[in-house]
């Protein structure tokens, strides 16, 4: 049966539907009613939502299992004979790959239309605020994940203090705007540059370090920045932080109700949600910019040098690659994106304090990169949704109380579930959700050999 089955998406869905049906059959006698002692003897309490949840769960699990199996089968099929151990070229994508390709488009489409979708679903801009805010939060982490991906995923430098650059960016905007009255649009690139400079500052002392030692020093660096922010009260406001940071403007037009505001100028009715939607699209643009830059850089000599550096530093040097500059550019660029994200964070919050830049943040960003599959852009995005959106989802799983009894709060099991997810990942997907880097590398080469890249500079 395993050999005969086809791996088309409809076939997988049909198969999963069958499983769900069997699950339904089993659930009806076992789960659908609960007996409870009522005033007139035993009463049957129907539990159909639970049955539905079970069946849906079985369905989803089966689809996932089939997709995983399909990928494995495809890989096995593509493994050539031992005498010609070359990876297959131009193979048909299987259902799993097609699914992830489709997933990317769906992801982008949802990201682009989220404010509209949320408004339609919740019946108004105001009620949609929760979803748009969640979207902003997730996209911030997507951007941070993509930025850290340059350092960890591409250059292979384990950075545990990444949040320090996020903090530098955030304080950069907060201080420049409150002290000198600089606008957000000037501060955004400035924050990036400033964070990049700090990336270099971190880069220099750790040039000779690798692996665990590098991790420890970067961890310390993150803590140093946080402690400086707490203790340098004159400048940073200490633990109290900086408040009333100026809001973002629509390229100079403030989101206010008066005549010069955004809404009157564009003939709209004033709604405080305009600002939120604008912030959403701003972070989406910034995140996509990060992605675009990373993808471009990977094809450029410096990106190749990063990847080579990750693979073998000594070989790199003997090929004439200056590992000092290569490492510093990785640190600086990764930090620059964190700085930009940080300045976005502070314009969105309007208030920042060292509380927001603890080690836990670094750990979450790193977890996003590792879970997503180091070096994979799509994987990082999916992992960010799971890591940041997951806890929110847990909050909405109140109906599980019906299964596990009253007083069951799924949110309390958050870290336990993260732990379980991590263990499961390490067992089944040790290279991350999407270990797409492997095919993408050979894809790049395939394109490169066609001649278009042969004349391209690789220095």
């Amino acid at each position: 049966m395993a050999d005969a089955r086809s791996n088309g998406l409809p076939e997988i869905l049909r198969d999963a539907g069958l499983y769900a049906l069997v699950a339904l059959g089993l659930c009806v006698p076992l789960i659908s009613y609960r007996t409870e002692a009522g005033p007139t003897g035993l009463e049957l309490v129907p539990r159909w939502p639970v049955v539905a949840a079970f069946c849906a769960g079985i369905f989803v699990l089966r689809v996932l299992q089939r997709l995983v199996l399909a990928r494995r089968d495809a890989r096995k099929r593509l493994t050539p004979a031992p005498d010609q151990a070359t990876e297959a070229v131009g193979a048909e994508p299987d259902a799993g790959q097609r699914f992830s390709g489709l997933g990317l488009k769906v992801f982008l489409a949802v990201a682009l239309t989220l404010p509209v979708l949320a408004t339609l679903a919740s019946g108004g801009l105001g009620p949609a605020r929760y979803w748009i805010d969640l979207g902003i939060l997730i996209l911030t982490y997507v951007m941070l994940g993509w930025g850290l991906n340059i350092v960890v995923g591409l250059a292979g430098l384990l950075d545990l203090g990444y949040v320090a650059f996020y903090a530098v960016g955030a304080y950069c905007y907060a201080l420049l705007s409150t002290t000198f009255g600089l606008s957000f649009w000037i501060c955004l690139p400035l924050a990036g540059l400033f964070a990049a400079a700090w990336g270099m500052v971190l880069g220099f002392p750790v040039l000779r370090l690798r692996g665990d030692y590098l991790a420890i020093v970067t961890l310390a660096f993150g803590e140093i920045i946080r402690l400086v922010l707490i203790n340098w009260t004159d400048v940073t406001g200490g633990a109290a932080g900086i408040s009333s940071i100026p809001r973002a403007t629509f390229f100079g037009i403030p989101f206010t109700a008066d005549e010069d505001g955004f809404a009157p100028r564009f003939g709209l009715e004033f709604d405080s949600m305009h600002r939120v939607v604008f912030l959403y699209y701003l972070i989406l643009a910034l995140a996509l910019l990060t992605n675009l830059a990373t993808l471009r850089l990977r094809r450029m000599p410096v990106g190749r040098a990063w990847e080579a550096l990750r693979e073998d530093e000594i070989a790199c040097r003997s090929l004439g690659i200056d590992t000092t500059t290569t490492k510093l550019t990785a640190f600086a660029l990764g930090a620059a994106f964190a700085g930009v994200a940080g300045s976005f964070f502070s314009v969105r919050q309007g208030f920042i304090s060292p509380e927001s830049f603890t080690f836990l943040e670094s750990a979450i960003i790193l977890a996003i990169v590792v879970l997503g599959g180091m070096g994979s852009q799509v994987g990082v995005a999916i992992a960010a949704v799971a890591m940041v959106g997951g806890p929110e989802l847990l909050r909405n799983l109140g109906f599980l109380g019906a299964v596990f009894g009253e007083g069951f709060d799924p949110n309390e099991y958050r870290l336990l579930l993260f732990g379980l997810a991590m263990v499961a990942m390490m067992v089944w997907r040790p290279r991350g959700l999407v270990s797409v880097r492997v095919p993408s590398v050979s894809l790049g080469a395939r394109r490169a050999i066609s001649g278009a890249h042969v004349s391209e500079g690789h220095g």
Partner: protein
Amino acid sequence: MSVAGINVLVEETRARQAAAGAPLLAVSGVSTYYGSVAALRGVDLTVGEGEIVTLIGANGAGKSTLMMTIFGAPQARSGTITYAGQDITRLPTHAIARLGLAQSPEGRRVFPRMSVFENLQMGASLNGGRTFAPDLERVCGLFPRLKERLQQRAGTMSGGEQQMLAIGRALMSRPRLLLLDEPSLGLAPLVVKGIFDAIRDLNRTDGMTIFLVEQNAYHALKLAHRGYVLVNGRVTMSGTGRQLLDDPAVKAAYLEGGHGAAPGA
């Protein structure tokens, strides 16, 4: 090889050296330390333009250390290394590589998760990829196995293929001097022969200067114009490949089971 053959070889070598004037690479009085432990104690050797020079020695004699010292990591504590008239003793590794030295390091060190093609691209990064297409053609001609495997990840290839890739990658920068560190390490005899044939080819047809560090003394000496014997961080003997092959002390120490006393130790 007959005596006449040796003479021809010796004359050839002398002619090459005379033509080149100063040697392409000159190592003089180089001492290298790991902490307080001396790995090289005043090594002198020269490599002339167009020559194949080999350095043989037992495990731990300092062969690879010399190779790495030439490449600036670790740097020599005393003595000088000159390449094409320029003192490179204190230059960082990448700067040395940019002068036209290329190295196939010990243990091959290909980039395992990059494809063969990308590995070769990395090798070409020094000259900006301007001559990439013809160089790729040349490397593929030298090692046809690589051509079959351009899309394969380097880490999934056999040891011999990885060695070919390491040499090919070094060649992509069009070096004037090619340093090879134990290209026969851990390879089947037939594969070793193929690689040594390729090295000879490079020297004969392209006139490439090659400095070869080897433990496989027999093959290395047969291939090389001249050879040096390194014992405990010192050069104890030198001569043409043939002379060293015929030398009883070298024979005893490196060619017949290695049970004899190291020459000159």
